[in-house]
């Protein structure tokens, strides 16, 4: 059974704007998937549908075997606890330290202080941010801020990680570094779906890629080993 599945999904906004049109695909557990396409292709809308920040106008979306159209509103938060989300603009809270930003979601789970500290330390170490735990986001570089944002998602131990243009504000080296990081998490078992419009990254990391154009899925390109790269699965 796939981890998530979309069948004939259409999203139409009030006013008639069609952000997605009859999109169907499946993602298996442990996959790394790029959602590619130019701005306005529907990548962000698709990711928002997967965490039920939006509801599809037509079609079926199954995540972890649950129909998002039929799920009760009160169950949505529990579904989201299994999905990590990383934004292009990091969305770090400026008045909180790195450690506090990373710990944000853990309070929802009702963990003890010790458990929270331990998980935060683990995530910071994983992303090589140990020395920055007490820093405020403003004191960090763009790459470090993005790693904090990823740590905030990962600390919840989600089986599925969605990243919406996480490299959009980073230079080439940092973008490459971010995808390397996501690939490492993927090899540990996390399913990753990353939206990007960066063709260089797509060439460098030849994972399965869904091409969207004006809301329609125009190509589902399977993963293939790239010259000089053995990271793609």
């Amino acid at each position, binding site marked *: 059974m796939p981890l998530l599945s979309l069948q004939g999904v259409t999203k139409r906004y009030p006013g008639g704007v069609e952000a997605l049109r009859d999109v169907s695909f499946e993602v298996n557990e442990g996959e790394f998937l790029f959602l590619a396409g130019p701005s306005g292709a529907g990548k962000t809308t698709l990711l928002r549908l997967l*965490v039920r*920040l939006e509801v599809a106008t037509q079609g079926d979306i199954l995540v972890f075997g649950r129909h998002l159209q039929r799920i009760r509103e*009160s169950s949505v*938060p*529990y*579904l*989201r*606890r*299994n999905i990590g*989300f990383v934004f292009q603009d990091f*969305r770090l*809270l400026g008045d909180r330290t790195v450690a506090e930003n990373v710990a*944000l*979601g853990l*309070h*929802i*789970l*009702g*963990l*003890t202080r010790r458990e929270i500290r331990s998980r935060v330390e683990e995530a910071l170490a994983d992303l090589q941010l140990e020395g920055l735990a007490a820093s405020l986001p403003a004191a960090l570089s763009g790459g470090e801020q993005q790693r904090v944002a990823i740590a*905030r998602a990962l600390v*919840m131990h989600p089986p599925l990680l969605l990243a919406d243009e996480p490299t959009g504000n980073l230079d080439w080296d940092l973008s490459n570094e971010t995808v390397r990081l996501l690939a490492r998490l993927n090899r540990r078992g996390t399913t990753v779906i990353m939206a990007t419009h960066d063709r260089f990254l797509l060439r460098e990391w030849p994972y399965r890629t869904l091409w969207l154009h004006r809301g329609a899925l125009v190509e589902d390109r399977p993963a293939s080993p790239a010259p000089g790269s053995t990271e793609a699965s």
Partner: protein
Amino acid sequence: MTVPLRSLVRQGLYLVGQGLQGLRVAPGQTLWSVLLLAVTASLVSLAIAFGGLAARLSEQAARGSRVLVYLKDPVPTAEVQRLMSRLQGQADVESVTYLTREQDRAENARLLPPDLVASLPPEAIPGQHALEVSLRFRPEAPEGPDALLASLRALEEVDLVAEPVVGGQRLRAMAAAVDLGRTILLAMAVLLLVGSLSFVVATLTRTLDRRRDEVTLLRLLGATEGFLRTPLMVQGALQGMVGLGLGVLGGALVADGLSAWLEGRHDLHRVLVMRLDLALPLALAAGLVLGLAGALVASRRKEA
């Protein structure tokens, strides 16, 4: 304690902490709303104390209003009884007692200096048979028993109607003045309450504005609506409870001070009484309800 219950308690403590932190989001505005609520509660509690005073004054006025209706001599017993039962049926009359000549003389003797009474022959002290009429306090008839007194004076059997005990009318006037003061205080309190409520809502709305990014993130990380709303509710409840609680304590202090001043000047006692054992829990409960309502209004406003 089971593990889910423990984690629920931990969550609760965390959210209370978040609510406390919310108080620091706009400290000036928070302070103002607490202050306004405190002044409102002070005015309400003073108004209640004034109301109590007005009621006591009116009661005292009514109790002090005894009229002596001196009868002509002689009036047949049957006529006296008929008059008594007629008076008993009046709305202003609490009770009617017949006084014999001797009883009236004894009353008069009590009013005179004992030396003088001892030096006089008993017949020298005046005594006339009379009806002692105790007047009933009727809040719905603040003009008092004037009409009744006039009708008594007009009766054929009546020789003289002694004026009500001095102080009855004055006490009534004082009660009316205190009651007016209470109404003014209440009107001010209502105006202030509207102002302080909008201040509380504005403070909470500002907190929500400041927390907007955090709320968006928490929602995405899987926070339930309860988890998101509780800090705001805690913040609102704290504002309401602290404001109204302090206000009642302040009102009690003012009432005590005013009482002490009035008692010293006018030889009165128990002028303004405030039941703190009742007022404080009531204020805290009202503060809780008010704060929660404010939080609800603020979050609805943001959702809209």
